[in-house]
């Protein structure tokens, strides 16, 4: 008993430290937010909040998909290009429909366009999965390859030109296309509603389904996972397909928001997505990461860049600051791992003796 009262304060101090470290991304978000609320004019205005969350949403979608991929021990560099290609597919379908070469073309309504665009994203994700599982290509290389192929395909689709005026045609039921980027549901922008839906779905998959558990297991130790009866290839297919799905959503939203599709859209988006996942505590070596953390990470990055813009900081400095924040996040993450391991070992040795 005396032993317990002695160890108790120490244990709680470790626990408090651990809690602070675990909540670090959230704390960082609050700090960044408060800083800009004080220093940037109009930062807290409702209009700014809406614009900012729309910006954040785009990165957050990609980061959610990326989190699954990284947790499974892989990486997906192709998401930025998938965004571009999917935007072009959406633009093409809205403008031209599919020309079957018989002097007439098939036109689609908004819902059908969405389905087709998502199918393109899922298909590229599946190709990534195929390359990585069946052909045994390293994820970095496989997705680097699809990055180029998808970007090239986006350029080819219009010879590098922009598809302008994606207003749709009421006759075909595609005039609602703009609603995706500009519409609101109960006062909330559609893209935010979609983010909430996808985020909740991803979090549910991650924490409450066998599939989610399998993703963590494959990323933690692929050999042990396979010997435990986990279908490793199927799990990997899922994460890349899901990442492609998220990228397709972003492609739809961007082309609708801009009412235009440009083939270079989404360039280097994959790096922001990786940064958000890492900021949120996802381990690049796989097996660890949370959807909630990633979304907060995406907000930190988004608030930081929008806030700096509003303060009039040069975009060069913004880039430097973003890089420093990411490095700091990873350094703190290492500290958290050490404290966590120590707390667990202390608790265990108390039992062993």
């Amino acid at each position: 008993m005396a032993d317990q009262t002695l160890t108790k304060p120490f244990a709680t101090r470790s626990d408090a430290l651990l809690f602070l470290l675990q909540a670090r991304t959230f704390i960082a978000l609050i700090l960044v937010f408060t800083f800009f609320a004080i220093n940037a004019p109009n930062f807290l205005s409702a209009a700014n909040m809406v614009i900012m969350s729309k910006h954040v949403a785009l990165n957050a979608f990609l980061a959610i998909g990326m989190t699954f991929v990284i947790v499974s021990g892989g990486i997906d560099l192709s998401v930025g290009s998938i965004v571009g290609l999917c935007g072009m597919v959406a633009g093409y379908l809205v403008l031209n429909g599919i020309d079957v070469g018989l002097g007439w073309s098939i036109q689609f309504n908004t819902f059908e366009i969405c389905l087709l665009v998502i199918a393109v994203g899922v298909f590229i994700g599946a190709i990534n999965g195929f390359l990585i599982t069946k052909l045994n290509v390293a994820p970095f290389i496989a997705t680097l390859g699809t990055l180029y192929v998808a970007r090239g395909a986006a350029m080819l689709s219009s010879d590098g030109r922009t598809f302008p005026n994606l207003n749709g045609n009421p006759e075909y039921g595609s005039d609602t296309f703009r609603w995706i980027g500009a519409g609101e549901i109960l006062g909330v922008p559609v893209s935010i509603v979609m983010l909430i839906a996808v985020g909740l779905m991803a979090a549910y998959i991650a924490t409450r389904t066998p599939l989610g558990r399998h993703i963590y297991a494959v990323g933690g130790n692929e050999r042990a996972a396979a010997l435990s009866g986990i279908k490793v290839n199927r799990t990997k297919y899922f994460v890349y397909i899901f990442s492609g799905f998220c990228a397709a959503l972003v492609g739809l939203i961007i082309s609708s928001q801009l009412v235009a599709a440009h083939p270079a859209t989404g360039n280097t988006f994959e790096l922001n997505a990786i940064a958000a996942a890492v900021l949120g505590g996802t381990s690049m070596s796989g097996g660890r990461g949370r959807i909630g953390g990633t979304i907060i990470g995406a907000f930190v990055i988004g608030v930081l860049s929008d806030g700096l813009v509003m303060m009039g900081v040069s975009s060069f400095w913004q880039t430097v600051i973003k890089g420093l924040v990411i490095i700091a996040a990873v350094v703190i993450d290492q500290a958290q791992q050490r404290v966590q391991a120590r707390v667990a070992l202390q608790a265990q040795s108390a039992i062993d003796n």
Partner: protein
Amino acid sequence: MEHPIGLSIRKGTKVYPGTVALNAADFDLHMGAVNVLVGENGAGKSTMMKVISGVEQLTSGAILIGDEQVTFRTTEDARRHGIGIVFQELNLFPNLTVAENIFIAREKTRSGIDIDKAAQRARTRALMERLEQDIDPDDLVGDLRVGQQQIVEIAKSLAHDARILILDEPTSALSAAEVEILFRVIADLKSNGVGIVYISHRLEELIRIGDYITVLRDGVITGARSMHGVDVDWIVRNMIGESGKDFAKEIDHPFGEEVFRAEHVSLGSPAGGLLVDDVSLSLKHGEILGIYGLMGAGRSEFLECVIGRHPQARGKFFVDGVALTEKTVAGRISRGLALIPEDRKNDGLIEILAIRENMTLSSLKQFTRGIYMSLAKERRTVADFITRMTVKIASPENPISSLSGGNQQKVVISKALMTEPSVLLMDEPSRGIDIGAKAEVFKVMRSLAAEGLGIIFVTSDLDEVMSLSDRILVMSNGRVTGEFPRETATNTALVEASAVGHAKPTRHKEPV
């Protein structure tokens, strides 16, 4: 001929958390002679060699060279004193050439700037000639056969003029011809005054080549003498002890129908030849079948064939008389097979995940309805298994890496049992766990068998296989070389069967 003592350990004790690996050991290393070290897995042989080569430090006691006490903080320290070691697990870089491997970290340079490749190559070629090997210095180590890689590892020690050379199971991967070459090299080194420590499980080989023998059991030296007049019986007696450890074997129960049968299982090795060579066996409900053999005898590979890790394996399997057509691990688990792998860290556990998540990894379906997985039910089941298996943990949410080996093993066993198997395959179930946890694991195995589970377990521990099994199979070179019911099995018979097909013991001893 007198052999001077080149190095000795006095009262050497090494304590790891939870186990005493070496207990007040006194060891003399004779120069110009082969000092043989023998004992079961975990008896402390490797620990003693790690201490001598600077990989680990003694908890208490001293290492003496001459009359001077020395401490080796690093392997580099030991190397400066002329100590070279060839580990059983090879420390080579497959992506570098033979010459680069031999001179790694001690590259020959031209005035300290760039590597003198020509000199390294020439030296390597000379070493290979001495070892009678036709290995090109520019070959990539990854392209060599395992036996050749071992030769490279030995050459590495020779290149640094080691006065004391430790060989940890050097012949485990060598062919008979390569073993002969190695023995000639050893004789050559001996005549040059090099002191050799030779660790092996192949007793006949030890008797043939050794000049002095030291037997270890549970970290204690139980016998040390010159090799004159030593025979297999003497070694086995000292290795096992007269009494034998007492494992829970009190429960005797009748066996049921046949639960598992394997027919003509073969597995090719990437290097050519067969790792598993036409193995057939049958197992009844409630029976514990022990598979004894040396490392590399194909025992683990056989179990891996059964669980479906090698899709290219040939052969048929039957569970409860019904042919096993499932090819995947998941399919075979669903048919009632479960494997507890030998390499816990790499194959058994996902270290980054919590204890709970590791335990339920194979049986998440049990907690899932549609897309809803009940975490509450999962927690209840985990708590239930923790009590049943007496796993000592602070919280099931802690990472599995915080546990001791014994508790980790209990988690792995729980994971297998949670799938409700009818056949349990256990590969070295007592590896790396302390004696108390060992006894508990064995008790669990006995009571599972009493509940009707069929168990196949693999071990290199004679005592373990003798006291735990209802029936014993011995494997050597991928084949079944002996089958004994528990009543008629003897240590000597098992050891002999486990050496079938290896370099024939010639019984000829060189004059000392």
